[in-house]
């Protein structure tokens, strides 16, 4: 029975049916299913949504809607998770200085939270040194820099320089994401990855976290 409810829960999330997710979540909890299993069903749904996005069947709107439903579900689940969930990794996120766009950052943030990462969101128009300060403060091993404007992307190089200056470049990876991200930034700016979509970004971040233990 549990498995059936969890399958339906996953399917409701993939179909972006917020009311159904809420209903099935309550049903799962009333049936005393393990909250961790419920969370895993939801994560599996988010992975399916990522696949649909990569295949061109889902669009930014579907990713955002899924992120919102997932956020609501996590609020319900959080107090019921018996032990502190083991973090997949820690990441500092922000939109680079000179750019106020935040939707791309919000999408990757919701995907990361769904995948179990601890996310430290610095907001928009963030100076390079703020990323580094936060990484030092939290011990995060990954910095995610969001950039939409091609006129702002040169500022992402300063994040790498600030990490070098702080002496922590060897333990912190930098990924640039957004419409302005280009592969040549890896060589020219010294970042570790540059991606145009959040789903690919999540894959890379997960690989890094897996290799390094918790980031």
């Amino acid at each position, binding site marked *: 029975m549990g498995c059936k409810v969890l399958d339906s829960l996953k399917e409701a999330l993939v179909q*972006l049916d917020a009311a159904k997710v809420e209903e099935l979540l309550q049903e799962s909890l009333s049936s005393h299913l393990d909250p961790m299993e419920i969370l895993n069903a939801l994560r599996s749904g988010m992975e399916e949504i990522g696949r649909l996005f990569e295949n*061109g069947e*889902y*669009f*930014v*709107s*579907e990713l*955002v*809607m899924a992120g*919102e439903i997932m956020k609501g579900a996590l609020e319900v689940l959080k107090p019921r998770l018996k032990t502190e969930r083991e973090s997949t990794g820690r990441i500092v996120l922000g939109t680079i200085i*000179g*750019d*106020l*766009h935040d*939707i791309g950052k*919000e999408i990757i943030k919701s995907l990361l939270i769904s995948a179990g990462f601890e996310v430290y969101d610095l907001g928009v*128009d963030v100076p390079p040194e703020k990323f580094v300060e936060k990484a030092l403060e939290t011990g995060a091993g990954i910095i995610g820099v969001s950039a939409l*404007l*091609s*006129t*702002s992307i*040169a500022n992402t190089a300063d994040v790498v320089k600030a990490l070098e200056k702080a002496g922590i470049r060897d333990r912190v990876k930098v990924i640039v994401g957004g*419409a302005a991200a*280009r592969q*040549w930034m890896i060589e020219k700016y010294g970042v570790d990855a540059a991606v*145009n*979509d959040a789903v690919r970004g999540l894959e890379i971040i997960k690989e890094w976290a897996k290799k390094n233990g918790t980031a």
Partner: protein
Amino acid sequence: MNARENYLRTVEFREPQWIPCGVSISPVLWRIYRERLEELILRHPSIFGDYKKGSVDFNRFDVRCKGDIYKDEWGCVWHHVQDGLVGQVKTHPLEDWKILESYEPPDPLKLKGPPQPDSPPVETWDQARRRVKEDRKNKRLACGYVPHSFLFQRVYYLRGFKNFLIDTITQTGNLKRLIDIIVDYNLRLIRWWLENDVDVMIFGDDLGTQTRLTINPETFRKLFIPAYAEIFKACRESGVHVYFHSDGHIMEIAEDLVKSGVSILNLQDLVNGIDNIRRNLRGKVCIDLDMDRQKILPFGTPMEVRRHVHRAISALHSPKGGLMIQVYPCSPTPLENIEALCQALEEARGGIKFDKPNVIW
């Protein structure tokens, strides 16, 4: 043949003499290159027309200065974070649907002049009327315009982007009501221009992301195509051409836009794919090709720029017409790439788009 006649022949597939080309350079580049850019422009009169030395203020950004904030007639608050760039809306008056009940939409005709997206009007109604009259008298192309972001983007400026994206999934009646309000606003504005006898109405709305439409194409067709059709129909029924610009990947709905009344479609070349444009749009609509300003122009070599221009034109050109070129070089495009661009356009039978030089955007 003057530029107006050549332009209209291009749009109407009546064998123009040359490919109308426009190169409008960002204020940031003007500030960087200054006299050197002016000299380049003077070397290419066949692209830039009768440009007069000293007619551009190299340091002028108007309201588009870093730190400036502007509240538009809808109540959206724009923040300018970089000199010379369009601002970004950070306050959205209809974030909460409850406000829609009491919300009073603006009357565009009560403004000082035709509205702009992120700044006050740049001409008064009287100046706009005189300009159109002068253009008509001097046999120049007479253009009217609505502010960039006139419909699709205006919805999310009012609602906030995240709310808007969710609205397109939940599709409540409020979204349809808001679209109707915005259509009414635009129709009032368009009627004013039509009464003043323009040749072309210029529209701009960025519909795509880098790789796909912002929202599902089916949803777009259902929610937005009827609204665009209503607006464009008003123009076409008056014998006025519809120029429509969109940034981003729009191939999935490009033909729907054409069916809804667009006569000139300004779309990005690499983002949409030159082969896709050739396959789906060539011969069906006049293409105003927005030549790459993300990769080759700013970061390629002059040779790559030339090759790209020739490739695009040979793929899309027809002696019957239906092709124009528009380029918006922006920072950090090297000066030699702008030179290579102009040379390549000249080699490919490119010529002026308008009788009046339009060298800044």
